[in-house]
């Protein structure tokens, strides 16, 4: 009997190792280990053996059975692996072919900059407010210490609709609106980005442009606070290494007034055509809110002080994205717009 088992084992081993696929392995399993398989037949024939031989042969059969099973499993794994590798190879693609596009739209570069400015000031506790673009003379000028006939009105040639209504020439109009709207005449911390309009149209000026206005009113607000705030604003928007220069100036709605120059961002201060060889770019108008403005809008200048500032956003956007002509911002060429579809980083 032992010989018979040994013979079956050898035959089976040969068949298994020769098998070229899963099918042959299955066949071998059925042939030797199946219900009607040869080894099973040996076990079945054990009844004829003596009680002493039975356990010996039984365990021998089991050992061989286990050996064959292990081998078959091993072989199966090998075949599976081969098969998988073949399939993977077959599925290999040309990864250099073009991708499947998901089209995204784009945010206008000026609005991108506006949102950036908003986010910066909101993080410092400012409220973003808006006001009408079709403004009254009262809010655009009179309440800002610019009575009718004031010479500074000439600085901003306006689009009038009637003698009372005009397109706002400056977002400063919102200063007066914000103060008037504050019923308890308490502290104010706002910025107002928006469109403004002046009779001016050339390569560097557009009759429609964007400004942002800032206004802070509280007890003990000082020029030092204005300086610190604008330093944060300019450095965050344009670059940490830039320097600011405060130059005394004149605006009817602030006293003292300052124009703020920043190191020329094109040449770094060495002098170039953008900064007219001065090394500085005039960026902001600012100052301490004029007591007349506080008074006219219901605030007591003995109790409260404030600062205000304003700057053009078109130029900021142009600098940020390297746009050389302001008109590009308003032409809306789709090939231009499409370029503003990625995250600012």
């Amino acid at each position: 009997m032992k010989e018979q088992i040994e013979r079956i084992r050898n035959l089976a081993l040969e068949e298994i190792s020769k098998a070229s696929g899963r099918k042959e392995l299955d066949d071998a399993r059925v042939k030797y280990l199946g219900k009607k398989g040869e080894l099973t037949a040996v076990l079945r024939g054990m009844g004829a053996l003596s009680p002493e031989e039975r356990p010996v042969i039984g365990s021998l059969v089991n050992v061989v059975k286990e050996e064959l099973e292990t081998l078959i499993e091993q072989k199966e794994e090998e075949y599976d692996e081969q098969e998988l590798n073949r399939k993977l190879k077959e599925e290999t693609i040309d990864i250099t072919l073009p991708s499947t596009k998901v089209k995204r739209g784009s945010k206008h570069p000026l609005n991108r900059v506006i949102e950036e400015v908003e986010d910066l000031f909101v993080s410092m506790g400012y409220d973003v407010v808006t006001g009408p673009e079709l403004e009254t003379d009262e809010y655009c000028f009179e309440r800002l210490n610019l009575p009718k006939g004031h010479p500074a009105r000439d600085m901003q040639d306006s689009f009038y609709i009637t003698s009372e209504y005009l397109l706002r020439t400056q977002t400063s109009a919102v200063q007066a609106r914000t103060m008037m709207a504050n019923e308890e005449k308490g502290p104010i911390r706002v910025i107002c980005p928006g469109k403004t309009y002046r009779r001016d149209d050339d390569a560097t000026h557009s009759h429609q442009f964007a400004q942002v206005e800032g206004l802070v009113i509280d007890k003990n607000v000082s020029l030092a606070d204005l300086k610190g705030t604008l330093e944060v604003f300019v450095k965050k928007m344009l670059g940490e290494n830039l320097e600011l220069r405060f130059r005394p100036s004149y605006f009817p709605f602030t006293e003292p007034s300052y124009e703020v120059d920043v190191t020329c961002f094109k040449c770094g201060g060495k002098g170039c055509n953008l900064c007219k060889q001065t090394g500085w770019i005039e960026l902001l108008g600012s100052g301490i809110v004029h007591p007349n403005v506080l008074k006219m809008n219901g605030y007591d200048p003995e109790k409260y002080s404030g600062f205000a500032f304003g700057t053009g956003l078109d130029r900021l956007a142009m600098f940020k994205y390297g746009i050389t002509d302001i008109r590009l911002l308003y032409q809306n060429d789709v090939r231009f717009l499409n370029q503003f579809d990625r995250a600012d980083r």
Partner: protein
Amino acid sequence: MKLSTNFVKDYVDIDVDVKTLAEDMTKVGNEYEEAGKLLNVTKLVVGEVKTCEMHPDSDHLHICTVDVGNEILNIVCGAPNVRAGLKVIVALDGAQLPGGVIKKGMIRGQESNGMLCSIAELGLESKFLEEADRAGIHELPADAPVGEEAVSYMKMDDEVIDFELTANRGDLLSILGMANEIAAIYDKKVKEIDLLHKENSEDINDNFKVEVNTNNCSIFLAKKVKNIKIEESPDFIRNRLIASGIRPINNVVDISNYVMLETGQPLHFYDSDKLQGKLEVRMANDKETLTTLDGIERTLKSEDIVISDGKRAIGLAGVMGGLDTEITENTKNIVIESAIFDPVKIRMTSKEILRSEASSRFEKGLDPNRTYMAIERACHMLEKYAQGEVTGGICKYDTTDLSNKEIEITFENINRILGMKIETKDILDVFRRLGFTYTQKGEETVVVSVPKRRGDITIKEDLIEEVGRIYGVDNIIGRLPMISPKEGSYDKTTRAIRNKMIDLGLNETLSYILVNDKEAKMFTKDDTELVSLLDPMTEDRNTLRHSILPSLIKIYEYNKARSVKDVSIFEIGKAFYKKAEEYGEHTKIAVLMTGEYYLGIENKKQVDFYVIKGIAEELLDYLGYGGRYSFVVDSEKMSEDMHPGQTAQISVNNDIVGMIGRVHPKLLKENVYVMEIDLDKLLDKKVGKMKYKEVSKYPSIKKDLSLVVDKTVTAKEIEMNIKKAGGSLLTKIQVYDLYKGTGIPEDKKSLTYALTFEKADRTLTDEEINSTMEKIIDFVQKKIGAELRK
């Protein structure tokens, strides 16, 4: 304002170079545009032409030998006026002129070691050139010292700073004002102006009268100067005028300009013999005419201030004199006018007629002390440089207050506003340097007496500005406001809308709100009026838009002209209206789509009505209006600019908030689809907070339903009827096919729906669903004649 540094050095010592002066002035608020030499030249000397012969190979060149002091140079010169014995300006080898560098060389075979110069070649602006300067080289006086530096010999070695001054600093439109400012910066003394002159024993008041018949003139002074001799001004006057940008004429005219530059007070000189013994200031009569100095007849308005001789206007006060009484070469006796006119009136008149050196000073307001000073200074100059004899006395009308303005301020106030701690002595030092006197009242308070010349300083804050300016704003350390922290806020909804549109694949645009009057109300139909500009720049931009769509149409056309055919754009912006004499504005969102549009991944589609409808629904759903809106057709409200068969109004809560549809083919023959929603109106409709709704744990069941209906029945009608019959079990209705053609009669169409049935608390039975389906089929047949498609 062009500042001649030679001129200002008469009144204040300056130890720094011109560039530093310009920078330091800028730091205190007086911005400069340019600073440098009046003549940007080097290596020019006075020479004498020794010999002058014709060039053998030229019909106009001369070969000259020129003595330049230390040597005799051979120089070839083409000027017609060159001759032996002439004193000339010689540009030596290596000299820099505006036109380039002069180098030794050969001219038609003859050695030339320099150049003889004309005034034009030195770079003087052409308005200052005289006939002779254009014709040839400059002829220096016979006594000019050979070998001397030519520019300084001609007293043209001036340095000029061109300032762009702020509107409030009218005082700086004068040499004296500049001297005061410079003195404050460098802590110097300002020198006295020389007003000395003799006066004869006559009194002008004996035979001359001044009358002021308007309150737009606060002070009017007149003096007489006799027997003047008109000639060319001395070099220093001429050159200082040139450096200041004013063309020299003759000594008398030049003196009036010179004194104006010096004191800031414009003067006017009349030919006394052409007057009738009187000057009157009054408002012009409407339509009154006057021929001004420039020979133009002006028609005046009652808002213009005029000077009259008692009978007729002879000058436009503060703006321009009249032709009849002007100073000519034959003038012997003159009357000087020194006056102050109302700044606003002068500004209005000069805006209409001419902005002059005089009017720009009157506009800013003047110091009446200077009105007196200027007339005396003019007498001094006329006596000295025009041999004039000053008549005694002065005609005077004066309503001004000449006293200083007193302002009380505390040191604490100054430091609080500047945000720093400046020592009291340093603050007082600023006032002293500015030439202000002050009285300290105790430890904390000071009363500052501000001279009249600084008319811009009227309140405490103006003094704070002065301290900040002169002490130096650079010394103030920036900090962030020490105020209570709070959360900032912004309009999150507009941003959400913008981002949503971008997610839908649209490009955001930003367009001009000014359009032409024909476009302004396009795509709208309501009872509002146009909002027009009083004074537009161009007819193409004379009206405020009432819809954003005309702007988007322009953008579409701009892109189409550049072969960009796929355009999907949106804009959020203002649209304006006038109604019952009231003006207003609304925030709107507009969309324009044409060409191919990407629907998600790699799925392009030609834009049609349903694409833009999808955009509208997507936006409304996103904003929380799901289930509250519908698309309706109301031809009453439809603009003629839209395709009548492919346009719908968007109704939210039964209120029209906007519209979608195709642009009328008569406007654009291409398929262009647009949408516009009034965001103010839409967002006014409140939306509840986003809340979780339980998802059914039990399976839902889908059933298809193909119906054949009349062509005229709308999808909306079918859907509403299915919904009604389906009841609460029917949770979703979706159209997935529209079919017309074979198998369906001409006047019918077939729509196929996918219906979803669901119940939150249990699994539905087949019987329930089948009976519901039957109910639906029965209902739609009864209501809209729908048949099941076989």
